[in-house]
Structures are given as C-alpha cells and as structure tokens.
C-alpha cells in the first residue's frame, strides 16, 4: 500500500527514482533482499508491430504499424506516437447470413487506421526461467492514452477521437532487441446525427522493439559512481617493488645510469 501511496504522490512522474519507501517497523531482525542490477536500460525505443483488431462480427482487422517510445525511467515512458493500419478481412458472417437466413444486415464503416500517443507505466519487472535453466527478463506495463481512429465506409470517411488503455508484456532478448505483447481497449466517440455515440473494440499486437541510447533524458548531467580502484594500487603502496612492470622500468633506468 505504501507503494501505491508513493505512486500517487506529486512529482512521481518526473522523479520516480528518488521516491523512497521506509520499511518501518516490519524489519524486526532483518530481511534479506536480492539487489539485482537491471540487465537492460531502455532509452529510445522503435517498435514494429503486427496484430489483430476484432472490431465487430463482420470483419477482423489485421494490423501493421509502429511506434516510438521515449523512456524517462525504468517505470515511466512516453509512447510519443504510434500508428497502426488495419487491413480488414471479412469473417464470412455476411455470406453465412445470406446463405442460412437470406438476411443482409447493414454494415457500419470499417476501421482504417489508428494514430495515438500513450503514457506507459511499468510497475512490474522480473525474470522467468525456461525449464529452470535459462533466464529471460521481463517487464509488465500499462498504457494509457488517446488519439484518432479513421473509419471509412460506403457513405462516410471520418476521424473519431478515442481513448485507449491496456496492459503489455515485454520480453528482453538483449540491450537492443525486445519483444512486446500489448492488449489495448479502445473507446471511440462518434457524432451520429448530433448525438455522441461510443463504440468499443480491442487491439492485440505483437511488436519487435529496437532500443537505442544509454542515457535517458532525465539523467543527463548525472554522473555514475564508478570505483576506479582495483586493489592493486594498495599493493603498490604497501609493497612498492612488487609491481613487475614497475621493476622493469627501474632496471632499465639502472642500465641507463
């Protein structure tokens, strides 16, 4: 709960890493925590996606698209822009209705493409074993955002504003390449004869993401504390003649003399 409280706090969006939770009195005689270095850092992410949009019973959209995401921290990211084109495929329901029931229902305009922008929140980070052998790292995120949907039909070609939200899973294959599975629900608003109507549909898509860069926009100017010492400096200090390379220099000097 303290996590959630911290989450809701002001300023979290821009400075998440500084938010600390005090464990308080639950530490009686101590607890052990494995502090794992995160193996990968996401910074600039470009993704190519393909998926399905089961908009209604008469057709299914097969989507193709891409996105750019700017990662501000390990928890927060901004999917600045995403675009998904929908290639619509008939479900044969229309012909089935015609064949079985001699019925020909009227069809609504079909989705053509989606343009949006989302905030991505990644509260879960973890790892998975495959047959208790190899380990792959994962993150689970939630996306919330909005944009425009383009619908086209026999009589109209219109843009509808939408809001969208949904979870996603990322599996890391390395610092550069990762795969994403996202499921998003869309609510569109449409002006029908002067009144606003809402419509819902889902979009599930699988992406291959390519990550570039090391330093995030929120980290520019921060220095990493790297211990430059190796322990051998102390040996040089305690035993000045123990460094074989230094002694070679001495011998050469002696020869010169």
């Amino acid at each position, binding site marked *: 709960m303290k996590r959630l409280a911290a989450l809701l706090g002001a300023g979290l969006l821009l400075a998440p890493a500084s938010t600390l939770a005090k464990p308080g009195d639950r530490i009686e005689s101590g607890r052990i925590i494995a502090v794992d270095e995160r193996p990968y850092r996401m910074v600039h992410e470009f993704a190519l996606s393909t998926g399905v949009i089961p908009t209604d019973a008469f057709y299914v959209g097969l989507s193709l698209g891409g996105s750019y995401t700017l990662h501000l921290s390990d928890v927060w990211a901004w999917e600045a822009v995403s675009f998904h084109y929908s290639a619509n495929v008939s479900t044969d329901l229309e012909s089935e209705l015609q064949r079985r029931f001699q019925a020909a229902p009227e069809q609504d305009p079909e989705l053509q493409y989606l343009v949006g922008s989302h905030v991505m929140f990644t509260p879960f980070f973890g790892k998975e074993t495959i047959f208790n052998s190899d380990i792959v790292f994962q993150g689970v995120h939630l996306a919330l955002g909005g944009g425009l949907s383009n619908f086209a039909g026999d009589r109209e070609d219109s843009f509808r504003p939408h809001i969208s939200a949904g979870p996603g899973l990322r599996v890391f294959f390395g610092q550069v390449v990762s795969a994403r599975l996202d499921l998003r629900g869309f609510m569109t608003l449409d002006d029908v004869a002067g009144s606003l109507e809402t419509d819902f549909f889902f979009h599930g898509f699988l992406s291959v993401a390519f990550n570039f860069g090391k330093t995030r926009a929120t980290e520019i100017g921060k220095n990493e504390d790297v211990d430059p010492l190796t322990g051998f*400096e102390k040996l040089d200090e305690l035993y000045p003649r123990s*460094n074989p390379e230094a002694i070679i220099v001495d011998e050469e000097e002696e020869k010169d003399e």
Partner: protein
Amino acid sequence: MTRWYLAAALCMPLALSTPSVQGKPAVDDSEFEGPDEFEGPEDDAFEGPEEAPADEDPEPQPADPAQEPPAVDAPDETRKEPEVRPTAPPKRFQEGLSAFYGDNFEAAAARMYDYVATNEPTAENYDWAEYFLGVSLSRLGFRQGASEYLYNVAKNRSSPEVLPEALVELEKIVNSGPFDEALIIDRLFVDSDFGYLPPYISSFVRYHQGLADLRAGRLAWAKRLFDQIPEDDPYYPEAQYALGVERLKKKKDPEAVRLFRLALVHPESDRELRNLCRLALARVLYEEEEYADALRIYDQVEVPELSTAEASLFLEKAWAHYWLRDFRQTMGILYALEAPSYRDFYSPEKFLLRSLIYMNMCHYIPAKREIRRFRFRFQSPLENIRSRIDLREDEVLRNAALQDGKIGRMADLRRMLAREADDIDTVGGAWIETGLDEQLRKIYRLAIRRTDLRLNAMLSAESRRVAEELVEFEEQMYLLDYEVGLAIYRRLRKEDARRETEQDDLGIPIAGDQTYFAFDGEFWNDELPTYDFYIENRCFDQGGTE
C-alpha cells in the same frame, strides 16, 4: 591476527601428497587385508573410503621408492594366466599399431597388451608397446591403467626415444583431472633422474621435481630446477607462484607479493593460476587489514559457480565486509551460504558471524538465537567428540575433513578409480581373450585399496583436526553468549550517541538501475552474490563489539 592465509595459499599446489604406502601392484594383492573388496563405483556423494580394520595401522608408512616394485610388473611375474599364452610375434605389435592409428583403441590396447604380456622386456619394441598400450587406455578413459603403463615406460627408461613421449602423455593425465599423485609425482618424478629431456617436456618435469623439493624444504634445489624453466613456458609462472607461497610461509615477504604479481601478469598464466594469484594477493591485503582493497581483488577471483570453492570465497569476503563494519553485506553473503548448493560446506563460523552482526546491531535476542542454532547444529558431532568415538564415523566431521584440498583430491581419485574399474566391464572381446581385462581389474583393485588406505589415514588425522577446532569454536560461542548477556545491560552515555550512517538508510527506491527481490526462501542462483541485509540498527552508541 595469525597469518591464516599462509596455510590457505600453501594448499595449492604445494600440498601434494606425502609419501604413501605403495602396495605391490597388479599381482600380489594378498598383502592387503584392510579394505573390503571393491564392489563397484560409488555415486557422486562420496562418503569417504572404505574403512580399514581396527588392527591395521591407519597411518601410511613412507615407503622407500627404490624398494618398490614397478607399477606393472613383467608379465611372467604379474599375471596369473589360466593358461600360458604363446609368445606374440612382432606382427602383433604391428597390428596394434595399425589399430591405434585407425583410432581403434580397444583393439590397439588388446594387441599391445598381448605383445607385452607374452614377451620379455628385452623384446624388440617392448617399450613402444607399453607406451601405445598406455596411450590407448588413456584415450579410452582408463586414466589409472594408462598411468601405470606409462609410468613403467618412463621409469625403466630403456628406450630413450620413448621416454619424452611417455612423459607427454603423463602430462596430459596430470593436467586433465584426478591422477595418482603417489605414483606419478612421488615415485616417478621425485625418484628419477631423466637426464636430457627435450624442451617441450622438460619444464613439466622440472616443475614437479621443484615442487617436491619445495615440499621437502630444499629451497635452493627447487630454485635451481625452476631456473631451468624458460620464461616463456607455461610452467614458469606456476613455479613463480610456488616460490611465492614458499617465501610467504616463512615471513611477510614483499618478494612473495612480487612473485604472485609476476605470475598473475605472465602471458602464459592460465585462468586457474591467475585466480590463485589474486586470491593470495587478496589474502595479503586482508592480513594487512586493508579490507576494502582486499575485497576489490577478491571480486576479481573467478571460481566455479556454486562450488565449495565459491562458498569458501564467499566466507572470506564476508569476513572482509565484517571488519569494514558493513554488516548488511556480511549477512547477505552468509544467507547465500544457506543455499542448498552449499549445504555440504562446513562452516561453523557462519553462526559466529551472524551472532556478531546481530550483536553489533544491538539485536540481542537474534544474537542469542544464532548461538543456540550453532549448538543445535553441532550437537551431534560435539557429543561424538566427547564420547570419543572414531571421528571418521561422524558424518559432519567426515564431510568437513573431506573439504580439505588434498583429501578432496584423493577422494576424487577414489571416485575416478571406481568409475574406471566399472567401465572395464563395458569392454569385452579381445580384452578378455588376451587377459587385459583381468589385468586391469587387478590394477584397479590394487589402486583402490592403496587409495583407501591413504584416505583412511588422512581422514583420521583431518577429522581429529576438525574436531579440535569445533571444540574450540564451541568455547568461543559460550564466550560470545556471555558477551551478549553483558551487552544487554551495558550502560549507555549520552555523549556516546552514534551518528547515522549510510547503512541506516533502509529505503528502497521504486525504480532505478537495481531491482529488489525480497528473499523468502527461494534461491535463484543469479541472486546469490547480491543479497543485502536490511536491518534496523538499534544501537544508541556504536554498540556490539568488534
């Protein structure tokens, strides 16, 4: 603090075997009345050697190598053939050679053995036949059998041209797993003067002869032998390391540090040697109480994951963190040692360290709990020690004794012998026809009995040493218990109030370059080195004890 690192550094590779009883191999096994008949291979959980009867002196008696018979005697003396086989013609040797170069090592071994077993040692190509027999056995995985025949070739030295080849094969055996140190090192290298050897094998021999001299305290002789090793030879850094260990044994010697560093940066040093050097240097810094720098070098030591060696390294690092008063890291390491992979790692000091940490953080009840855990954990061996039973019978003490490097190597050899003896059954045909399988059985039966004798003797001494240390530990735990009791009622002065340190910050960021997984009894291998202990420091002043 006593220079404990000396003993540790010396264990490798100087701590090779002491001269041991060498039974007459291959034939007359009736003189061995000790261990039971070998009954096949043991599983990996080696429990120690078969026990010698009570009336047998478990201590190995140094044998005079000169009086010992060769590893594999001449055929007419060694084999108890059910029927006398006719003398194999020179053609048999040629057949063996063809099979060898055709990679048919089973057939090659059978033919070479037939030639060796039915001819006099003066026969043409006799030494080569023994050599090819040894190499064929080696290729088939019978390392002990190979060692014995190659030993014969090298020891007899009747054909100078075969000697280097035999030594090359022995080098491969020595550098690739468990081997019979008593046979190859003590009986062959120590007791032989090989005369001129070609450069590609002389360093190997000089190195092991030098090591033997170092063990015997003949430093000048050792140096003379080591000086004959060329600087660009892989044995050169090994020799420097050995000399470093020897110098460190006598006093805190800067030259020892230089030798370790020389071996470390030598281009021919292999990974294991580099790690040994780093370990030795880290221990030198530890001894100088430069714990932070010691840890920096400890961190560069690479050991096989989840091995006893890693557990040992963890423990040393835990002590370094402890003296730096980094109790969180210390306890983290100690928790990692609770993983099932380290269950066999004997370390009563885990309990001591944990108790000390709790005491330093003024958590007195947990400190006392750790002392109770120690007593509970070692109750059985301590009772066994007091009741004066044979200490080798105590599982805890026996396993602890087997952690010793030298006994561990001997136990590895014992396992190898059992495995190879069992493998003889997988080869039939020509081996049975020529009697090679029966001969190998005798060789292995004898080697196993010799090894069991040595193991029993070493285990007896080592178990006694472990037991003495455990008793001493128990006394320390009693003392610590008393100290904890005093600390509970210690008077505090306002002016001694301590300042908060970084270690008092128990906050966990919700994001960042680290992921925090709370430990709840599930051991992930990749997390073991990363455990951190989150505990509130309840001390008003510095608390605890140093």
